[in-house]
């Protein structure tokens, strides 16, 4: 549920590495929410981007025009594209009992910080490889993570994610949409 108060938005923070398409992912999710009738505000980290370095992007979504124009420090949803980033304290900074974590991992061991509302996992890397997105060594997982976000957080529908992908992803639209759809189906809560 998106809260009804004027300045109460749902705040999402996206974490990945330069070159993974984190900023584009925030735009897919923002566009999906916009197409779903929400007011949205999407912005990248205000910095200098470097390939391989940790990169963040942000999304606010609300039922009202968004007046707050500053960084997101207490996110309701944190989405992580690279499981290695989970080991860094900054990735879950500001998380609390209202926060949902959605992360990409093939399984095995992972460390989810305690005290979150919920954590969801999906093997977006395998899904992206399956659909030939990126290269086998550097798969592009952003569209799969858009599907995972839709499933785990529930603020956008899979249909709107597909429409957003069709609108803003220039390459392999069918494969990207399938990746999002499969991630939507495979995303599961960690217990």
């Amino acid at each position, binding site marked *: 549920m998106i809260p009804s108060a*004027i*300045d109460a938005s749902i705040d999402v923070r996206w974490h990945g590495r330069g070159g993974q398409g984190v900023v584009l992912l925030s*735009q897919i999710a*923002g*566009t999906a929410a*916009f197409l779903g009738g929400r*007011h*949205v*505000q*999407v*912005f*990248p980290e*205000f910095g*200098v981007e470097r390939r391989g370095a940790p990169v963040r992007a942000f999304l606010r979504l609300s039922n009202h025009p*968004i*007046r*707050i*124009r*500053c*960084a997101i420090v207490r996110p309701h949803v944190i989405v992580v594209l690279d499981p290695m980033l989970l080991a860094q304290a900054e990735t879950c900074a500001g998380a609390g009992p209202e926060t949902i974590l959605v992360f990409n991992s093939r399984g095995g061991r992972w460390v989810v910080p305690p005290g979150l509302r919920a954590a969801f996992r999906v093997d977006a890397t395998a899904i992206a490889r399956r659909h030939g997105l990126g290269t086998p060594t550097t798969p592009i997982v952003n569209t799969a993570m858009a599907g995972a976000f839709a499933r785990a957080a529930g603020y956008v529908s899979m249909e709107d994610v597909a429409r957003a992908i069709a609108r803003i992803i220039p390459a392999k639209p069918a494969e990207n949409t399938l990746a999002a759809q499969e991630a939507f189906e495979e995303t599961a809560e960690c217990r």
Partner: protein
Amino acid sequence: MPRRELLTGNEAVAHAVALADAKVIGIYPITPQTTIIEKICDLAAKKVFQPRIIHVESEHSAMATVIAASYTGVRAFTATSAQGLALMHELLHWAGGGRLPVVLANVNRAMAPGWSIWTDQNDSLSQRDTGWMQFYCESAQEVLDSLLLAFRVSERVMIPSMVVLDAFVLSHTSEPVEMPDAETVAEFLPEYRAPFRLDVEKPCSFGALLRPQHYQEIRVQLQDAMEAAVAEIEASDELWKKLTGRGWGVVAGYRTEDADILFVTSATVASTARAVADRLREEGIKVGVVKVRVFRPFPFAAIRRALAGRRLAVVFDRNISYGHHGIFAQEIKSALYGVSGAPPLACFVGGLGGRDVTRETIETTLRSALAKSNGRLFAWI
């Protein structure tokens, strides 16, 4: 129904320039402006409009290009930031003094050194005395609307305009924007008909030597035109409101009717400040917000109307004039000089070089001003 799109502030600039059908665009990249010219080139490649785009080797040349284009009687546009705007400085005087209705988008970026790509207003405010109008925006919608208004007003008063938006917080932030249709734009912004232009059939000279008995006369004309521009901006804003339902004013008040304390600021900070005002009112503190949208010509009358009779005005500047203090605060003081009921001013400077201005920043500013409302006049936050 007008269509709505998700646009960054910079994309809103580009779409506005296309809607205005600018004929000549001088381009030179600089972060955080670059995505404006990228989007313009994209729209031109898709034949949304067909400007002559001229790649040049510096911002100085970009401004020279649009000045020359404007002298031939066509609508011209360019965009820049920070050091790029500073490099244009000499030619900004040339456009202002030459009475050319050029429009420039400046994405506010802090001046180096130290090197910064993040927002503050010292770049554009350093161009205060070049004879340009300046509009400060808080949303992508206001950016789009202001660009169209800038072209219209500039061409009516023959003074160039600078439309200013915060680096990243606005330039790279996507939000819903209502796109006016072509008919609405055509009604608001008719084709530019230059009152004078470079024409080989009717030769005349521009920018020629003016002896002491004449130079001041054209400066009097520029000052008169600048003063008259306030009413022109207000009238054009009214027309836009009639056409689209959106008006922005020269000064925009929020919950000011019964306010004891006014938070006076510009650009995106004003947006966040309204949320803070609502919150403080829940505690019984009667706060209102005044956004100063037009900096040149300075809206003296509107400022006096908004501020006179209040208990306290707290001015928040994202800029500084070293050795004085915040630049909007200086102007507001000068507007209030000798006005009966002028409130005491508490002047704050913060958010320089992209330091985030959060709800907490604004709340702290207001609370500390209230705690010493008859105390210090100036403080950093």
